């Protein structure tokens, strides 16, 4: 898995690429923890580059969303194919803030608080 990040007015937008599985999740967790230390309060995860996600990936995303709860929050976008299906089946689409596109996520501030 690769993470390509950019900053848009105080928000980190991260494009995740490859497979988010048991093996690669620790890398995401380290990446996220590093940003938490620098007091980032909103993260947009663009999953359009992911070809695969397992419950290990979902668990890490849920943990990240919980950490950002009460701040400006975690938003998810780019849910397609297998990854979109896993988000549907797990019910994650209804508990996380999701948008079709990065632009949508950037325009909407976290309303779920």
């Amino acid at each position, binding site marked *: 898995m690769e993470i390509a990040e950019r900053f848009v007015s105080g928000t980190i937008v991260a494009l995740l690429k490859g497979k988010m599985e048991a093996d690669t999740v620790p890398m995401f967790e380290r990446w996220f923890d590093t940003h938490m230390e620098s007091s980032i309060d909103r993260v947009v995860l663009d999953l359009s580059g992911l070809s*695969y996600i397992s*419950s290990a990936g979902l668990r890490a995303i849920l943990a990240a*969303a919980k950490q950002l709860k009460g701040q400006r929050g975690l938003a998810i976008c780019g849910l397609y194919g297998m990854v979109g299906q896993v988000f549907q089946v*797990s019910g994650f689409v209804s*508990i996380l803030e999701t948008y079709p596109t990065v632009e949508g996520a950037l325009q909407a501030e976290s309303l779920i608080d």
Partner: protein
Amino acid sequence: MGQTLVQLRCAAVHEQLPAIKQQVCAAARSAGWRSDDLDRLELVLEEAVMNIISYSYGSGRGELQLELRTEGGEGLRLLLQDWGVAFDPTSVVHPECSGSLEERSIGGIGLPLMQALTENMRYRRQHDSNLLELILHKRPTVER
């Protein structure tokens, strides 16, 4: 009984997961499994194997045995065996699948996925071992 595509036995440790996935997915691919169906198999496999690795033997060490067979014309049958603590994943009642962020627990995400993404999941305890049988059929492709 169908044709055996993979048969392996190895230590139930994290380090084995990539090799197990590679072997099973390569065999499924050569049996004509592609794209969404292959991803689904990989996911179910990862969840089932990770459950054994993470929970079956506690802090001790043990082994797992895996078999992949063809099932009927279009299906696959994945059989997993371990000799750890008795655990029936088919008996677990789903935690809340919706609700709010706070209510959703970090655990209990993998089993509902396994149940949703397989056609059938059967468990039996046999001579101090857990035997889990997962049946997958090809499904119509979901439009992107």
